[in-house]
């Protein structure tokens, strides 16, 4: 039982970090970023190259992942999404663009890094084994780092000038503009920040699960799930959704073991029932 909870918390911490980036982009731009999972994979491969291949320290690799993805995110916002949002009759058109960029990243990743499963050496060796819980130290380090990043992100959004501007933007774009917030600039920063989070998680997790070019889509779907559970466009919701999904997965894998591979089927079914009762998730805005 303790083991299940520990696993759930570990999964939840990394999931929450993935969901945060997605929900941030959604809150600011009303864009559902299909390419989020691919950004995660890209971040993983950058860390793999810098830390695993070049042998530089892990921190440098993580920074490289974050910065590269932030730059990519900023460029995507400036040259792709902004243009399409301006020209299109319907807001949903950004979904086509997002799906196309997801395909594009898939292709780039496949060309640059191949289709093999890649892993890196462990960052910390050894296994924690006490009080009925068995957990490798590197998982604990990654889980703790994820929680630190989440805390840093929340504090940044809450207290910094940029964070305040972005929250204003998410609340009411027009009002924020009238109050003198430079909407374009902060949309770009927000998109970059969201992409950076995806890259950082990818970099963190490559040390544990490794990475391959095909997992982008499934990661995106998981991220969508978490955002839906918590409510789209709400920071607290994304964190709650991440931990809830992590817990459900951990409990499900243990409790439903004898029925075969049905954990996600049960989670999906539960989610659909939940959403028909609470269409906005736990704390979402109505009609996000």
């Amino acid at each position, binding site marked *: 039982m303790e083991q299940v909870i520990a696993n759930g918390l570990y999964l939840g911490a990394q999931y929450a970090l993935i969901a945060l980036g997605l929900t941030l982009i959604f809150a600011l731009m009303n864009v559902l970023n299909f390419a989020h999972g691919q950004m995660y994979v890209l971040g993983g491969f950058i860390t793999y190259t810098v830390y695993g291949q070049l042998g530089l320290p892990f921190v440098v690799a993580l920074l490289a992942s974050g910065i590269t993805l932030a730059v990519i995110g900023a460029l995507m916002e400036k040259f792709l999404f902004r243009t399409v949002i301006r020209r299109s009759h319907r807001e949903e058109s950004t979904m086509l663009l997002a799906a*196309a960029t997801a395909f594009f990243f898939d292709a780039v990743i496949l060309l640059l890094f191949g289709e093999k499963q890649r892993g890196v050496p462990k960052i910390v060796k050894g296994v924690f084994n006490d009080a009925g819980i068995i957990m490798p130290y590197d998982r604990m380090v990654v889980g703790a780092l994820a929680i630190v990043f989440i805390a840093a992100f929340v504090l940044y959004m809450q207290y910094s000038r940029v964070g305040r501007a972005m929250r204003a933007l998410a609340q009411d774009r027009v009002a924020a503009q009238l109050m003198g917030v430079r909407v374009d600039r902060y949309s770009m920063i927000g998109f970059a920040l969201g992409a950076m989070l995806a890259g950082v998680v990818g970099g963190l997790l490559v040390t544990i699960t490794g990475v391959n070019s095909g997992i982008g889509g499934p990661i995106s779907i998981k991220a969508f799930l978490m955002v839906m559970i918590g409510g789209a466009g709400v920071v607290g919701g994304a964190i709650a959704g991440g931990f809830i999904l992590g817990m459900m997965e951990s409990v499900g894998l243990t409790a439903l073991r004898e029925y075969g591979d049905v954990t*996600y089927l049960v989670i*999906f079914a539960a989610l*659909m029932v939940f959403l028909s009762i609470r269409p906005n998730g736990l704390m979402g805005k109505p009609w*996000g």
Partner: protein
Amino acid sequence: MTRNRNMEIASVVAFLAIVFVAVPAAISASGRFDLYYTLTSVALLSIASAGVWLTFYIGRINIGQGAYALMGGYVSAILVMNYGWSFWWTLPVAGLFCAAASVLIGLPILRLRGVYFAMVTLVLTEVARLLALALPITNGAKGIVSIPLPGALSVFGLTIIPDFATLQNSRLAFYLLAVTLMVVCFGVMYRLVHSRIGKLCQSLQQNEELASSIGVNIAYLRIIAYAVSSFFGGVAGAIFAAISQSIYPSSFTVTDSVNFMLNCFLGGLGYVFGPMLGTLVLYFGWDLLFQTGEFQLLIYSGLMIVLMLVLPNGLLSLAETRKKA
């Protein structure tokens, strides 16, 4: 007005002549019989995409069409294999089964809007795949294989459709079947959109509360549109299972669901025939790029991004801008 009407009739006749006469003639003249398969796929995929378009028309982003295509394929395959039904009877049954299922599923989820509906339908595609893996009747990951080709269909002793297995060119038969259904499907869509219900659906797209406040039964309309949409998906899936003579849980996945949606976007959300054009362009574009080998996906997605930047309202919006200018 009459001139417009004549123009419309002329273009419909021209279109029918092209798909039923010109295309088979051109294919048999050039000997590229593989094109039949490609064009059949385009026709079937455009039927499924038409369903997605209809849900767009009531203002919902539907990424769940793959679920219904899979469901339709399995219903048809199971009825043919386990119960010995004729394929021709399973076809409407598959469609109706999907429509009934979509009413049950739609009742709760059609209350959702925007990204919530989009994401739930995306999840629905995954649910369908996982169910197909987990249920005993679908035979798990091995799928259902060696489904017989459609048999003869006769009414009062008169053979309307010959047995596909005895035909020399079953590809042509499948092509004609798919194209006929496509024409019927888009005919129905055109009628629907230009009817009273179509106008009411448009009011849903713009503002549901307002529509409801002046007495439009929005819940009923949403269900109808979603059921018709799923019917199309089920029929397309059933024929796909018959053509490939097999169905697997991975026959229709999230990628297919996303592609159905992209077809609609590319053709243009404001035009009934958008999904048809979008499917044709996307499918042929993908096929043509096959020669570029490993760069196929890169070029394909790159072109899609560029197209989106230049024509964010779909290919058919090109005609409109010219009219204005």
